[in-house]
């Protein structure tokens, strides 16, 4: 068998390199396609709708980084999304921060919250980890409910000024704001892609696959888990902070557990553990909520049915199924 192996060696090495290259080419082309779509989108669709999709897509991408590549199921991602949304709205409205600073501020709060909650949650594994993230997120929800001076309570923070980008360019126009949101989304997507394909990302995937083994190789698994948790919370914060500026609103919805559930749904529908799946998932779910809005409460029922169908028929999600068909990671 060793003889056979060595004669095959050169050929296998070659095809291996070729597969890597063709995957990289495919991904590059997809990034170009996404960039082109981002440029065209505001001219063919309602810009606010596209911005909503982009914010939720970024949120789902951040969640997928943690679950799909870190193997950590958080049921409390609304905490980072929602708190960043409040901080961004509050600082833009009450401190008069420019939109980019308000977003940065909100994102930073998401990161700090992620660091604190992550440090507490990673001490437990599996379902206990998920329950702790949920409990901590619910604490954030009740904090938000009980501090109307900061969050506006049931009313939320309304009429958040979009302000002027860098104090120069007014973002009152949807198209103008769109370019900022598109840039934030693209930056977030590229960062996540890089994280997944970094030396750090390799270790995360190893820990996701087999944590005791990774530890026995000398990796301090908890440090990696905390790092990927903070990265995910930060990007979820970025999505929430941006959303507050887009809708000029931060409310209890953003920080409620249903928001945590929605991001799980988007990720699963699109394709868990795929780079591009959460984007597709976000488009599907947000489009459903928008275009089926006339159905009222039935939207939730339709969502539930789709979720059940997803789990029953294609567990890998939409993009996961495509990736399997073309035999390339997406």
């Amino acid at each position, binding site marked *: 068998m060793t003889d056979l192996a060595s004669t095959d*060696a050169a050929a296998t*090495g070659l095809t291996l390199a070729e597969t890597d290259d063709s995957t990289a080419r495919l991904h590059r082309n997809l990034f170009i396609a996404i960039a082109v779509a981002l440029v065209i989108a505001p001219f063919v669709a309602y810009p606010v709708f596209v911005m909503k999709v982009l914010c939720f897509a970024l949120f789902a991408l951040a969640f997928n980084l943690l679950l799909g590549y870190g193997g950590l199921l958080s049921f409390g991602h609304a905490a980072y999304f929602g708190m960043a949304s409040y901080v961004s709205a509050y600082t833009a409205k009450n401190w008069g921060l420019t939109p980019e600073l308000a977003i940065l501020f909100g994102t930073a709060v998401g990161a700090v919250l992620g660091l604190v909650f992550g440090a507490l949650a990673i001490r437990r594994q599996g379902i206990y980890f998920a329950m702790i993230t949920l409990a901590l997120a619910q604490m954030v929800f009740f904090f938000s409910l009980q501090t109307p001076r900061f969050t506006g309570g049931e009313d939320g923070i309304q009429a958040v000024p979009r302000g002027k980008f860098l104090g120069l360019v007014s973002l009152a126009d949807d198209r103008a704001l769109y370019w900022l949101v598109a840039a934030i989304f693209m930056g977030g997507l590229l960062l996540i892609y890089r994280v997944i394909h970094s*030396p750090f990302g*390799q270790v995360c*995937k190893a820990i996701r696959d087999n944590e*005791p083994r990774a530890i*026995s190789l*000398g990796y301090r698994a908890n440090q990696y888990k905390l790092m990927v948790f903070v990265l995910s919370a930060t990007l979820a914060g970025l999505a929430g902070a941006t959303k507050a500026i887009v809708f000029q609103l931060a409310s209890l919805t953003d920080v409620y557990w249903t928001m945590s559930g929605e991001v799980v749904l988007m990720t699963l529908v699109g394709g868990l553990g795929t780079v591009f799946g959460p984007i597709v998932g976000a488009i599907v779910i947000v489009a459903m909520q928008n275009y089926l809005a006339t159905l009222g409460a039935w939207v939730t029922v339709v969502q539930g049915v789709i979720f059940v169908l997803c789990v029953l028929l294609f567990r890998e999600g939409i993009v996961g199924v495509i990736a399997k068909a073309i035999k390339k990671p997406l």
Partner: protein
Amino acid sequence: MPEDTILSTSGLTKEFAGFTAVNGVDLSVRRGSIHALIGPNGAGKTTCFNLLTKFLAPTRGSIVYNGRDITREKPAEIARLGLVRSFQISAVFPQLSVLTNVRIALQRRKRGDSFDFWRSERSLKELDAEAAALVDAVGLTSFLGLTAGELSYGRKRALEIATTLALDPEMLLLDEPMAGMGREDVERIAALIRKISANRTILMVEHNLSVVASLSDRITVLARGQVLAEGDYATVSKDPRVVEAYIGSGGGHGHH
């Protein structure tokens, strides 16, 4: 501690709620030897193994590795000291490629920690050649591009060994390396263990007594959490207490 002892324990004890799994074990492993830990089912081998690899914390007693007390160290830290364990169930990273499996270990040894999430994985390409050589050494070159999950059981074990060797450990702790293997695989892995033992110390827990007989320089027999006998195979296999312990428990040859 004598110069030629690499790992020793004294009075090593582990109690689980009212039950003493390992009871006052004094073990001494000579540098460069292949040392086997055997015993009938329930003798405390696996618990003892988990204590040595720090996956369990001892109730009492101490563990000294290379003159350093590692009783309170964490599992990741002892790996960094050159004491690396294997697992009873094949421990690979199923969704990563065969090459990446080995490279993950090389990555740890050569770069230390990898918190650089901003750098491209192309920076790991320089490790590929060495990883491929290690994969070749265990006869898996034709499977280089497959994910580890796609390999057969015996090949997963071989991959696991290649991954462990990538750390160039001074001492290996093997947890039943032959568990669940067919005869052909057993011979291949036994040959591999002999090959890698050249300038290393190996301590293994193993059920397959013929493997133990042919591979090990020294054998410690555990029964009911205590050391029953110690010596080479000829000595311990004739020890009446050992024979009695094995027969009394219905034999230890079988697999789980």
